[in-house]
């Protein structure tokens, strides 16, 4: 069973490498953010898989928190890119409508 878990982990890590490639190539800043978003959600899955490989059940909490932080990070980076300033309220925020 452990072999299967390791194979799945390696597959997800390979995806993360492909996402990093896209983040490096770009070309627009939004391509990079998509890549970082994929990288973040895959990190959650890798941590969950490592929980099962090592048998340390506590690690799953790391994955849980990472799932939440990743979303906030993406929205924050988007806001920073759009407004150039995190404190600004903005006339047309990305969350309106």
């Amino acid at each position, binding site marked *: *069973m452990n072999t*299967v*878990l390791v*194979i*799945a982990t*390696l*597959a*997800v890590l*390979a*995806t*993360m*490498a*492909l*996402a990093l*490639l*896209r983040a490096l*190539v770009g070309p*627009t800043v*939004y*391509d990079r*953010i*998509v*890549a970082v*978003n*994929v990288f973040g*959600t*895959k990190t*959650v*899955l890798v941590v*969950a*898989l490592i*929980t*099962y490989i090592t048998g340390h*059940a506590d690690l*799953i*909490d790391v*994955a*849980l928190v990472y*799932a*939440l932080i*990743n*979303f906030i990070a*993406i*929205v924050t980076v*988007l806001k920073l*890119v*759009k407004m150039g300033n995190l404190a600004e309220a903005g006339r*047309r925020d*990305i*969350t309106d*409508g």
Partner: protein
Amino acid sequence: MAELLDVLSGILLLAGGAFAIIGGIGLVRFPDFYTRLHAGGITDTLTALLIVGGLVLQSGFSLLTVKLLLILLFLLFTTPTATHALARAAMADGLEPEGDADRAAERRDGAESSNT
């Protein structure tokens, strides 16, 4: 019974890994930003579903399962929101989607003829 669950969970995990790589390939190969959003989408939904499903089958009814399902729930609720925020920000920034079917066909034909 336990062996059957192990086999099923192994299949789900391997399928999840395969779809993750396909999504990654799509992310690298797709031609523009908006199509890459879709490629990211496969890895976010089906991969997460399959891998979490496979892991849940291994742990059965336990607190670990509850946490895994919570992770899946968070991912399924937050990724469309993040994707939509990205698409909207890109639209507002003037990035034009390649929506023209004719242009897509032209580009495809061009790519094919350059390959041969």
